[in-house]
Every structure is written in C-alpha cells, then in structure tokens.
C-alpha cells in the first residue's frame, strides 16, 4: 500500500506532465513555470531548514567515540575515531560523509539455536548506497553541459570516464545503469529485509520510485525517444540566464522528466532527503572529544540550579557527624555551652 500509492503518484505525475505539456501553450507552464517554482521552493526550503536547525544550540558536546580517545602519551589515539582537534573532526566527517563508514562496518546478526547470536559483515546496504549516491553525483555533474555555455572543460572529462565502456550508440554512461540498478536494489531491499519492510513509510518508497523514474525518463530521452536536444539546451540555458524561451517542439518525455525533477526539488527540503545537509550538523559526529580539556558552553545553562548544599546536608546530619568524629563546619547549636556564640546563629535566645 505504501509503495503502490507512491507508484500511483508517479504515474499520475507522468500523465499530467506528458499530456498537459502537449496542450498548446502549456509547454511554457511545464517547462518554465513549474521548474522555476520548484527551484524557488528548493532553495528557500533548504535555507529555511538549515536556519531552523542552526537556531537551536548544541548545549552539550555529545560526540560518540568509535575508537580510543586522546589520553596518555603511550596510549595510541584513534584520531579519526575520537577526534581531538578540528582537523581530526574534518577527517572523521570526511570518512563518514564520503565513504559512509558506519554502513561499511554494518553487521547482520542472527539468532540461532542455543540461543546463540552470530554476527557477520553485511556490506550490501553500503554498496547500494555508495553506488547510488556517487552515480547520482556524476549524473548531476554531467548535466552541467545542458545548463552552462561554454561547457566547463572538466565536464568533458567526467563524460569521458563515465562513457569509457564504449557500449552502444550513443555511448551508454556507466552511471545511468548503476543509478537505476542501485535504486532498484535499494527498493527491493526495503521489501525483502524484514526489519526494513516493517518500518518503511511512504516517505521512504516515494523518493526511490521518483528518482528511478527520473533516471528512466532521462535514459529514454537520451537513448531511445531522442528529444530535440538543441531546443532543450536553449530552454535550459534560458532558465539559468532568466530569459527562458521555448523554440520548436520538445517531446513529452522531456516535460515528464523535468516535472519529476521539480517534484523532487520541492520535496527535498521537507523530507528525509535533507539528511544530505543534516549529516554535517549531527552533534555526535562533528564535535571534538576534548570535553574534559576544553569547556563547552551551553547558552541556556541555568546558573540557578544548584546542588543540595553542604550546609543543608550538615544541618541535617550534624549531630551524628560530631558524635562520631566526622569533621564539620559548624558546632552544634548552643545548648549546654551557651558560651560558644561565635558560630553566628543564636538569635533565638
């Protein structure tokens, strides 16, 4: 139900964009108005979300340590496990963000007869995730060709390496295939892995189906239903330079593609896709583990919260403390020896 609904939404979007864009005059709506609106929401949304996060302080330094802290000279410090300096934090973050380290160390546990619990390395999620993210990145970079004039020289390099296999005409890009594959695998993992299946929401299926559809329409456009690339590039450059024009015919497949992308952009700031920004702000990852060496400041620390004081404590237990020879600050209240007045609380005489 969760994923079938997501499918329905994507099909509906395709129909709306595919049919709607072919109504005379509506090309401008789907090719210009929607992308602009979507981009505005995307940009505004991301800024709003980051500001929303940044508004809240990090009251405590709650780093998780995945290795030995810096301590005594002869104890080997795990600089990327328990970073002590900002440079080490950058190193740790780079590992977390660029290599998906926690997923690399993922294990699968099984309960067996006994009971006996076994653990084995499980790198599938890491593999699917890393292929997916890096394929997506390369495809994004390749798309710069459509938005920039002149095309930056390194975009050519990306294309060259991505098309290295030299299969098909036009040459198939490796990342087109790997992206589709990785998204499909991530999707099926959600259905097959019993834990993940039970906890998945529509919020999880929808982005996968949408991204798959984006990639699929892009591939169809490039390899099969060849759209008029000259007209498309003119429109896209126009969008970037704020002078959008549509000349000649552009096929429905392009409008479907760009509508999907627009929907993804709109969803981005308001969904789990914001993990892309959030990971950098996660206090368990981006704090130094030097909290005993350098004081971390909490802006809302309340100085009025004080411990139950020693004076109150001694007041309650003084008699027994004195009787048993435990050192005290004040003597007992004057009873037999009224001479001991210096202690300072004999007003009730």
């Amino acid at each position: 139900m969760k994923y079938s609904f997501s499918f329905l939404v994507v099909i509906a979007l395709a129909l709306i964009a595919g049919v709607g864009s072919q109504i005379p005059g509506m090309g401008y709506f789907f090719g210009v108005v929607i992308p602009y609106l979507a981009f505005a929401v995307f940009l505004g949304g991301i800024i709003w979300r980051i500001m929303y996060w940044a508004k809240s302080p990090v009251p405590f330094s709650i780093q998780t340590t995945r290795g030995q802290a810096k301590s005594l000279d002869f104890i080997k410090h795990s600089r990327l496990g328990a970073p002590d300096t900002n440079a080490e934090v950058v190193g740790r973050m780079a590992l977390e963000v660029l290599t998906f380290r926690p997923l690399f160390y993922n294990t699968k546990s099984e309960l067996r007869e006994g009971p006996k619990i076994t653990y084995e390395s499980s790198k599938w999620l890491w593999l699917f995730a890393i292929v997916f993210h890096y394929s997506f990145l390369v495809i994004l970079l390749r798309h710069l060709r459509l938005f920039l004039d002149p095309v930056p020289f390194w975009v050519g390099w990306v294309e060259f390496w991505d098309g290295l296999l030299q299969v098909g005409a036009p040459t198939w890009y490796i990342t087109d295939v790997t992206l589709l594959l990785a998204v499909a695998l991530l999707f099926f993992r959600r259905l097959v892995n019993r834990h993940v299946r039970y906890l998945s929401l529509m919020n999880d299926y929808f982005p996968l189906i949408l991204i798959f559809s984006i990639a699929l329409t892009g591939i169809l456009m490039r390899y099969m239903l060849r759209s008029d690339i000259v007209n498309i590039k003119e429109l896209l450059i126009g969008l970037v330079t704020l002078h959008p024009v549509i000349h000649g015919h552009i096929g429905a497949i392009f409008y479907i593609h760009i509508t999907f992308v627009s929907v993804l952009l709109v969803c981005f700031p308001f969904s789990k896709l914001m993990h892309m920004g959030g990971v950098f702000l996660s206090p368990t990852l981006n704090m130094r583990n030097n909290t005993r060496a350098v004081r971390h400041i909490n802006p809302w620390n309340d100085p009025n919260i004080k411990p139950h004081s020693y004076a109150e404590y001694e007041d309650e237990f003084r008699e027994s403390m004195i009787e048993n020879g435990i050192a005290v600050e004040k003597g007992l209240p004057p009873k037999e020896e009224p001479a001991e007045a210096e202690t300072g609380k004999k007003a009730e005489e």
Partner: protein
Amino acid sequence: MSLPKLEELSQSVWQGPSLSTGAIPTKEWMDTPVTFKPGGYAYPAKKEKLEYLNAQPGLSFPFARVWSPEEDDWLLPDNWKDIILKGIAERLDKFRSLKIFMDCCVRCGACADKCHFFLGTGDPRNMPVMRAELLRSVYRGEFTLAGKILGRLAGGRKMTVGVLKEWFMYAYQCTECRRCSIFCPYGIDTAEITIILRELLYSVGLGINWVIEPVSNSTRTGNHMGLQPLPFRDNVEFLAEDVESLTGIKQNVTFNRKGAEILFVTPSADVFAEPGIYTCMGYLLLFNALGLDYTWSTYASEGGNFGLFTNNEAMKALNGKMYAEAERLGVKYILGGECGHMWRVVHQYMDTMNGKTPANMEVPVSPITGTVFNNAASTKVVHITEFTADLIKHNKLKFDTSRNSHVRATWHDSCNPARAMGIIEEPRYVLDHVVDKWWEMPENTIREQTFCCGSGTGLNTDEIMELRMRSGLPRANAVKHVVEKHDVNTLACICAIDRATLTSLMNYWNPGVTVCGLTELVANALVQKGENRADMPEGLRTML
C-alpha cells in the same frame, strides 16, 4: 515476577515468534497498542520521592501521584497533552540534536539489529529507528506541515494517551548505550531520544522508582543508597579493615578532610554491595600503597548520577556536589572511580553544566609520576584507569600476576566509557600487566561495538528480571563464547552498574562466571613493601 527457567527463555528467544526470528507482525505498529503486564514494566516512582524532589529549588517533578501502568486510567493531569507538546517544542529549541535526529533519519535499518533489547525481545518497537519513530511520528503529525496535511500517509500521528503509554514502555526498554549510533550513517543517537522521552514523561508525572529513589537519596544524603554520613564512613572503614587483615598493612582512610590534594569519588555501590566492595577494597589498597594524599567525602559520596535518567536539571544539581565539595575541601583535583554513566556525565556534561571549576582546583598532576593529565585540564577529573595506567607505565607499581592465577579474565567495555569517552586501551593496558593472560570476546561485541549489560539507566530492578535477561543476552552470549573456548571464569569491567547487573546476568546465562572491577585485579596482584599477606587464593575475596 518469577523468572522463566533457562530452557524456557532460551527456547522463547530463538524460536518464539518475533521479528528477530523471522515472524513479521501482520499489524502495523501504529495500530498495536501497548499493554502492561506484571514483569513488563518497572514500578512507578513513589509519590513521596517525587514530591521531595519537586520541592528542591530549580527542580521540577510535578504531578506526583499513585498510579499503575496496568490501569487504563493513568490519572494524567487535564492539560497533559498541552504539557507534552510544549515540552517537545521547548526541546526542539534547546537541542539541535533533536531537530537533526527528527529530520534526517532515512530508515535505512542499519541500526535495527544492533540493539540488545531488540535482539533479546524481537519486539519491532525495540529497533532503535522505531524507538525514535515513536517520537518522530508525533513530531511529524503535530509540528511539520507535511505531517499535518498528509497525516498517517507521511508517517505522522497525533499525540494521544496511547502514544504516551507507548513512550513509557519503550523509553524504559533502552539503556542509552549508543551502540546503534555507531552504525547510523548520520550518527543519530537513540540515547538522546530516550533522554528526551523520559524528560517528557516526567513532565506529566510518569517515572520509575528505581531511578527516582536514587535521585532523591543522592540529593539528600549524597548517595543512591541513602547512606548517611556515619554508615557511609563505617562501610568504607570496614572495607579498609578487611584490607588490613588480608595484607597486614594499616590502611589510612580519611573523610571530608580539608587540604587533601585529591577528592576521590566513586559510585556508592562500590562501598556497600558485592561485588563492588572488592573494587572498593582495591582502591583503598592502591591509594594506601601509593601514600596518596586523598580524601573521601560523605557529602559528595556518589559518582553515579541517576539525574541523567530523569532530566537535565536533576543531573546538573546532583553533579554540582562534586565541585562544591572540591571547593569546600580545597582539593586540587578529583579522581573518579570505576563507573559508566558517571563518566558520561563527567566527560560530556560536567564542565558545561557546573564549570568553571573552583579557583582552588588545578590541572591534574599525578603526585607519583608527575604526569600532567592535559586531557582533563578543564574539568579536572581524572579516571582511575588513566591514573593507574600511567603508574604502570612509569614502573611505580610492582605486580605478581600469579596472585591472580585464579582469574581467567575477559574484558567488558562498558557502554559509556567506550562510546562516550573513548577509554578503550587504558583498561587493556592495565589488564595486560596484572594478569598472565586474558581473552577478548568476539570483535563485534567489544570496544566501540560493545554490548550493554542490558540493565543500565536505572533498569537494574528485580521486577523486570526477564526483560533484563533478554536484553543482556547478547553480552552473555559473547561471554559464553570465551567461557567455552578459553575456560574464562571472570568478567572484568569498569562500571558499577555492570558489576551489579552482569552478576545477575552471568548467574542466569553463564553460571560460574564472576564479575569484578579492574582495580580489584590491580590490587590482587600488587606487591607492597612491608606486607604480611595471608594466603589469598581468591585475592581480595578471600575469607579469612
């Protein structure tokens, strides 16, 4: 609550229908209300304890009442929903972590089978992602636009009494051990979620007594057990006498002594309960052998801080005693005993909450080796294991490891020192020097991947013993592995809660395995000048 027989529970764990064993529940979790049965929950906080705490300046423990989780009506205040929603809003403003953790989870499921509670119970809501989802669904439904419009379709729901009951159940089936966080690509920390859930529950008067009574006792008498100055001192002195009769060396122990160089603070469990008392005898013997200029305090007589398991304010108030006492006594720094969550608080919260340190305190320097503990330069609290490792490195301690020949040890990394401090190698270094040989448990169960004892954060109470034996199973299982392979008979650790809870856990799953503190093993092996040792086949545990 009778604990099932070992065979029954074993059978149930690996064959009973649960998500752990492959049975996928047919009903969605949002449609599955929680039910409380005897043995399934820890007893509610006592009314008078909450009232006492609520009367303390700066603390808030409102709506103290007599109630039972098994009743339908939890006697909530009329405006409970308002309080909870305001409470969430307030915490979103105060903790960036909460916002990030609410917004970023992609439900990849990497954390799902990392939780000892999930592995032992197979309850889907014990998957860490689900524990967070209990709160996240309310965050979506009540605080985000998409969730307000799409509701359940976007994973959102409204705050209801049913949700509150669910929170009460699962916030107390988490020990804030952070193992899941290590596997999360965004570092989402379920400990933060549980901390916040428990805070919210306390704001409407829902808590458990095993936490609240220690907090209340610590406030009044300085320690969890509510030991007043005299019994506290006497307990320590009894232990000192035991050390003396075993070693023939008079132990010099002082209390509340002004002008001492060091204030020693350890969990009070070490002072009064087996097997912690042997660790405590270890401290006494070690410090006496060094001639350390230190004092105990009867006022700051608790290293542990159950305030961490209630709310920020209580944690801060309890923790404040250490610096207050350090100032009153004029010590240079504090030496902290073996404890897990005590060190979470000392390492990550103390300086922030109660710093700067009093003017009389100085950057800690070992009086024996001259080593400057720069890693504690600001907080000025040194961990006993750092302190001991440094002594060993400088050849200040002479060991006879044959005195530990009765010990075939393995090492349990306690959650907080491992994942919230990074104390991983120091205890291993110490252990290497005090026993001939010891054995590591399997690599997925040690160091930063260590498994919790299953009963931390105030869950070491008898009425939920079956739950504890289930949640402790991953740890017990790893111990069993080395017991079978290497004939291990001792589980060593640096946590007072562990010493208590692992003992029950071992008695159940691995009878014959003894639990001890690291300093106990240090003291067992320590060779002292002028000693007149009795025959001690069981080290400090030898009965004369």
